[in-house]
């Protein structure tokens, strides 16, 4: 009986040691802070990119309008020259 108890205790000690060993490998508070900061930086970058994309779209629209205005003006010039008989 004593033998059984000794074996059981040995098994407990071994299993407990293994579990403690596996659970002890967690990041430190400083490392967790690094991760948090990095996540924040990535989120900020994503926000900046979204803003830049919308700025780019607005500029594209402006340029298209100005191109249209320039073409219209050139075509008006032609029509006026024709009208004036030049």
């Amino acid at each position: 009986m004593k033998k059984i108890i000794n074996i059981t205790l040995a098994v407990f000690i071994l299993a407990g040691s293994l579990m403690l060993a596996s659970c002890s490998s967690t990041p430190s508070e400083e490392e967790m802070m690094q991760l948090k900061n990095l996540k924040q930086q990535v989120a900020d970058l994503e926000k900046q990119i979204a803003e830049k994309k919308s700025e780019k779209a607005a500029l594209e629209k402006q340029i298209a309008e100005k191109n249209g205005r320039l073409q219209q003006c050139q075509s008006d010039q032609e029509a006026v020259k024709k009208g004036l008989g030049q």
Partner: protein
Amino acid sequence: MKKVLLLSLVVFALFVTVAPLIAQDEMTKEQWQEQMKSLKEKQTALQADLTKLNGEIDGMKTQSTKLDADVLACEDALYALLGVTRADVEAFDKELTQMENRVAELQRMSDAELVNYKDELAKLDARIKEMAASKISLIPRYGDRVKALQDKITGLLNSIQKEKTYTVGTWGRDRDCLWNIAKKKDIYANAWMWPKIWQGNRDMIKDPDVIKPKWVLKIPDGKELSKEEKSAANRYYRQKVAAAPAEPKPVEEKKP
């Protein structure tokens, strides 16, 4: 002893069950490393995207500024061709827009209301003709607008100048006399306006008491009798009174 063994087994079982559950909430070092690596890669890619976008935006801003200058130069050249200034064109545009808005208001009026704006329409018509003759109208976008407005004004003028007529029916069926015709809702809705029909159709109506079926009478515009129409009506009433036999009791006035 058996009790000690049993208790140890229960504690072990509990430990084995609960320990992994507690460990699930916490990040392992490996997981931290993986997340850090993945986030750093993402940060690098995003940084590159941002740099690229900034470059593109700078290029577009330069292009936009150049286009502004090109448009300005083109418009200046266009106005120089016409011998006008930018201020002239802006004033022309402003006046045209105001006229377009006013004509749109007039278009919403009925013909009867429009008659009261005959003079304004005539002025608009004269002004749009001047604008059509202006060199600025050679610019197609203004020429087109001027032409469209001119058509609208002509349409309005036509609608008020269009002569309204009435075909006389029979007395037996329609009870048509000048009094009753003037009283009709779609004519003047006022029987006392009958002299206007009489005076407007002097070529046909010699005696306002006599109108014949199938005559097509012109219905002149207006809300009130003119001085001449009033005089004609008074003459008619005086003649009626003079022609009436002198009787002691009053005679009912005959409707014209």
